[in-house]
């Protein structure tokens, strides 16, 4: 008997004396009142930054003043609205070529107020590794949508047709050395989020 057969045989022989039904839960909402404010506050507390802009013009105008943009030698932008920089992801054959990307700019579908996370659909990128190789990361939430909490967030995701998707909340970090928080572990060392709100 192979492992599979042995495991299923053992599992099938277990007797449960009571029923354990799948719970019907109306997942309680978080205490978020103003999702835009909460999102910014939480993202800030985890080492990220959030900027609200009306449109791409305003975004691009602001972008030139950011240090990570100014000093970046190798920029890979995955948004057609933003100048592609000098690396076109679609022309990259091997993800390993992206090892020296200083700044990656990618799109986020929406944000989550309770934890400052942005949902990034990895399928939109030819190489999802860009999100983690880049020294610095900028995410743009074009929809302007910030939901209150994970409960609302998971309702928005079509998992059936998503092969890779990420909640990204802030830059990479670690506290593995004597519990001292260090921003910038293996992934991006900074995270800036732009939320395009339209003329609100």
């Amino acid at each position, binding site marked *: 008997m192979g*492992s599979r057969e*042995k*495991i*299923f045989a*053992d*599992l*099938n*022989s*277990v007797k*449960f004396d009571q029923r*354990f*039904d*799948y719970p019907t*839960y109306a*997942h*309680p909402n978080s*205490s978020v009142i103003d999702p835009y404010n909460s999102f910014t506050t939480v993202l800030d507390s*985890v080492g990220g930054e959030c900027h609200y802009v009306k449109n791409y013009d305003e975004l691009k105008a602001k972008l030139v003043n950011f240090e990570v943009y100014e000093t970046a030698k190798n920029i890979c932008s995955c948004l057609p609205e933003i100048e592609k920089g000098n690396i076109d992801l679609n022309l990259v054959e091997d*993800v*390993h070529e992206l*090892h020296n990307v200083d700044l990656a700019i990618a799109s986020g579908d929406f944000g989550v107020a*309770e934890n*400052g*996370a942005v949902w990034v659909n990895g399928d939109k990128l030819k*190489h*999802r*590794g860009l*999100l*983690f*190789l880049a020294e610095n990361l900028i995410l743009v939430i074009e929809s302007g949508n910030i939901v209150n*909490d*994970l*409960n609302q*967030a*998971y*309702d928005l995701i079509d*998992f*059936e047709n998503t*092969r*890779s*998707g*990420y*909640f990204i*909340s*802030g*830059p*990479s*970090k*670690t*506290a*593995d*050395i*004597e*519990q*001292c928080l*260090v921003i*910038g*572990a*293996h*992934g991006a060392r900074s995270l800036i989020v732009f939320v395009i709100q339209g003329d609100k």
Partner: protein
Amino acid sequence: MSSHAKEAAAFLADEERAHWHDQALWFVRQKRDTASKNVPAWEELRETAHQIKMHTLSRLPEYLEAFETKASEKGVHVHYAKTAQDHNETILKILNSHNVKRVVKSKSMLTEECGLNHFIEKKGIEIIDTDLGERIVQLLEEPPSHIVLPAIHRKKEEVGELFHKHLHTEKGASDPTYLTQAARKHLRERFLAGEAGITGVNFAVAETGGITIVTNEGNADLGNSLPPLHIASMGFDKIIPRAKDLAVFISLLARSATGQPITTYTSHLAGPRPGQEMHIIIVDNGRSEILQKEKFRKTLCCIRCGACLNTCPVYRRTGGYSYKFVIPGPLGTVLAPHKDLKKHKSLPYACTLCESCSDVCPVKVDLHQQIIEWRAEIDKQGQLGLIKKAAMWGTTYLFKHPKLYRTLGKLGRIFLRAMPARLLNAIPIWGKNRDLPEMPAKSFSALHKKKLKQGGNYGK
């Protein structure tokens, strides 16, 4: 002296270090408290998480099969491993079939359980742990002392010394940012050179065949987004029914583990990336035995957050190594005896039954109840030891015979009151640095009887 007690005494001998270790972990527990209080429905979430897990455990064959079918449809090669050996051999086979010589691995306590690293290294394949804490203990050639914070027992100066030796950082440098940046550079090279990435799995969704992996460092994502081969190891208890259930578990996990609202990366993967091969290994390694035992099966709800370790006053003051098991703390205490009751029989007694572990567990595992159950098991299996057994028989007899009990009590008090304090407190049973209570001349019953006789308003 029992095994854990011996280890505890040794750890506590360095008082300053023991306090430092205790304080470091208490800090994490406090962060968890703050984070959980920011979620108004925290206690309901725990109950929901518990119910989802228990439901899943009661229908495992069905959910496992669903997961396997879906994952396979999405191009994943699904394997099963009954034992740790099966797990390791399956992985070796996959690596060999691709001539892999360099592996990068992100955090997986399951791979620790199975002893994967040693097994693979012996076959001449390099396997690098990429989680910073795990890399530290890997270079130190010691096991992790905590399931989430592997190097919590090491001071930054020690890490500085280690990195000076292995990563050529400056001698004497101990600034965590400097050391982390050095590790980033060093591990980047490994990520880019890696031919296979091995990761753990935090949750496996039956409905989609997808897996969810959480990290702060981004190492799991580099590990599965760069190499052309991704192997994910999971215990079968990682299955949850629906993607929507992740809202419950992800809300609980990081808050319980480190006090963060969420980890930096929560990655959802269903199927390999283009040009990549993805394998998932579903492991038993004793889990089905635990599932069989009604009194212990709730342990399989565990989402490996480590909150029970952080809150445990014993773990904090004696460290992970005092448990002599791959997983320490309250979780290890209820897991270890399944593997070897005799070897680990001191663990259920390395506990004051303060019940804090059960209160912090995000999935409501009844840890303290199971610790009590293990104590009963230890007695049932005749492992209690003669001294304890005799003491229990003796005192039970005494308590069943009130007159004898009170007489002996009286004699005991007379004897202890007659002994000089210095001599009395030198008796090692109660301990150095702790005096025995001063014995009163009369017991409560005697005093109460006296007062009753004196009449008046007393105790009619």
